[in-house]
């Protein structure tokens, strides 16, 4: 950038580049220890963290590029693309490729609480499909996988069609989409409050207040097996409907009005138009949205973790995996569950790569 301002000898330039690289390395090392030791006031740490985190990555690229610029022209042109691509490749290698392979490997072994791997075999997978607790987790995941996409997409589609005809469409869509901004943890607290059963006194949870007002007894919603699964599922439906609605809304707007007019002239009512004109027209979008929500739900963890920690038969695979990996230290069993989730998404992965090869 400023290279052209003052002509410098080649030797000086090379020296500057190397010194810059060394200085950068020292700064990184120092700040890493500084942030870990954390004896300084918090705002100093905060400032150092931000500068190192945001500035560091740029310094890294610029320094590497500077070093490469010193190479002879031909070597430079060959090496330069790798300055741009190597960090991304290394990150993918260390953070996704290596751990995924390692997890698959681990899933074939037993571990005695964090010890060395032993007994190579399929036992963890056999267990995943025979152990009663795990079967319940699989059953619950199935419930999630069926009901979250079903309701989120159905409600989303109906809302998308309805709001298309009102004058305050923008605001209605905003409010339904808003839960997408809320974390699963935040949403769980919101719904815990709704499902809350006060041990004595007035019912301050919305649902139990309604039940009591109708003359019933307060209900412990989250302990009501097996329905408690559905009360957790409702949270995810609440969160994901806005997503489905926004995508389906733009698809619904793409339905040619001539098509709807023609159906109307043929005497079709609103319901027939909905089922026989709109749904077939947006079916590809419905499939996309459903797939996306299915992938999300497959990994559902936070909601169960916060609401019940999997108690009262609400366990799901991702939460069980967390428990086995990080609480009980039964790595092999946890890894097998992670691999099961992985296998479940591979069709989508293969589809994506295939589409890429066609293009």
């Amino acid at each position, binding site marked *: 950038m400023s290279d052209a301002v003052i002509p410098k000898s080649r030797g000086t330039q090379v020296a500057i580049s190397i010194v810059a690289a060394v200085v950068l390395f020292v700064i990184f090392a120092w700040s*890493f220890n500084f*942030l870990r030791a*954390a004896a300084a006031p918090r705002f100093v740490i*905060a400032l150092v*963290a*931000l500068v*190192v*985190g*945001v500035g560091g*990555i740029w310094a890294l*690229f610029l320094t590497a*590029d500077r070093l490469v*610029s010193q190479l002879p022209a031909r070597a430079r042109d060959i090496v330069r693309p790798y*300055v*741009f*691509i190597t*960090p*991304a490749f290394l*990150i*993918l290698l260390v*953070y*996704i490729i*290596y*751990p*995924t392979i390692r*997890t698959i490997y681990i899933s074939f072994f037993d571990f005695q609480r964090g010890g060395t791997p032993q007994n190579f075999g399929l036992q963890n997978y056999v267990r995943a499909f025979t152990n009663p607790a795990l079967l319940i987790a699989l059953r619950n995941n199935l419930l999630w996988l069926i009901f979250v996409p079903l309701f989120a997409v159905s409600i989303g589609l109906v809302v998308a069609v*309805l*709001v298309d005809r*009102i004058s305050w469409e923008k605001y209605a869509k905003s409010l*339904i989409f*808003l*839960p997408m901004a*809320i*974390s*699963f*943890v*935040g949403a*769980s*607290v919101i719904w815990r409050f709704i499902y809350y059963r006060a041990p004595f*006194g*007035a019912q*301050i949870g*919305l649902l139990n207040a309604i039940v009591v007002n109708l003359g019933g007894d307060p209900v412990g919603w989250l302990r009501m097996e097996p329905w408690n699964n559905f009360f957790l599922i409702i949270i995810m439906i609440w969160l994901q*409907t806005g*997503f489905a609605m926004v*995508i389906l809304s733009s698809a619904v707007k793409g339905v040619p009005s001539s098509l709807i007019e023609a159906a109307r002239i043929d005497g079709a009512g609103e319901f027939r138009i909905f089922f026989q004109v709109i749904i077939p027209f947006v079916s590809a979008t419905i499939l996309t949205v459903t797939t*996306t929500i299915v992938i999300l739900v497959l990994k559902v*963890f*936070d909601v169960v973790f916060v609401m019940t920690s999997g108690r009262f038969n609400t366990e799901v695979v991702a939460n069980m995996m967390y428990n086995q*990996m*990080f609480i009980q230290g039964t*790595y092999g069993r946890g*890894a097998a569950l*992670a*691999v099961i*989730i*992985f296998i479940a*998404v591979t069709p989508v992965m293969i589809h*994506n*790569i295939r589409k890429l090869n066609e293009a």
Partner: protein
Amino acid sequence: MADTLALQRRKKTPEEIARRVALNVAVITIVVIWTIPTFGLLVSSFRTPQAINTTGWWTAVFQPFSQGFWTLDNYISVLTEDQMGNAFLNSLLVTIPATVIPITIAAFAAYALSWMEFLGRRLMFILVVGLMVVPLQTSLLPLFRLYNDTGLAGTYLGIWLAHTGFGLPLATYLLYGYISQIPKDLIEAAEVDGTTPMTKFVYLVLPVSVPAIASFAIFQFLWVWNDLLVALIFLGTSVDVAVVTTRLSELVGSRGQAWYVLTSGAFLTMIMPLIVFFGLQRYFVRGMMAGSVKG
């Protein structure tokens, strides 16, 4: 447009009016159902602990002056005593670099994939697309052990890099989609001046790609801000490093009946996302749509 105008000019039949009313009522009902949960939390967070525990939040809505007992103390106590203020700062420290780093690395990679020739280009591309939907669950255990061995566990750097890893395939894919569509003429025009690829990238490609970068930035920012699992594993729950989500989930465990803490705490975790939501709504929706395929 033409349809609505024609409709307005004509006198509406009673049937049409009834249909219009029914339509609006239906949408209002859905909107109200969708909004009530958040609204109840918000209202409760400003009520005194005593009021929260003795009457439902709706009574405060209907009788705001006799049943309200409004207060800000909940927020003050959750920010200080319950360490949510600290967690808020930690969340910012985690989220900002965990958004900037993957975007930077992805943008460089996307530029190379779009406009540079090199060995392994095709392979890199397949990796990016293939790894996009790989669930981060399969990475957790080996990385956790690697982090424990290298001392990265519980450090900011560790969690920045973890989020970078999990967000990178999507970021690269989205930015590639945009950067590769920049007109060739524009890129070549910059070449005559004898610029290096780096200057072209910094002064031409990045400014042109702002819309794509903004959409992904919003998605990644919210994803990291709202994440619980990655923070739980790589940063932990000790109060000096805990982020808002881990802190809130700890509070659910330790103070599960103290609704004045939970409501105000939950709302604090939501403030940042809500600011982004209302402030940058167009980019927000775009970002959430673009990012929905993340693994």
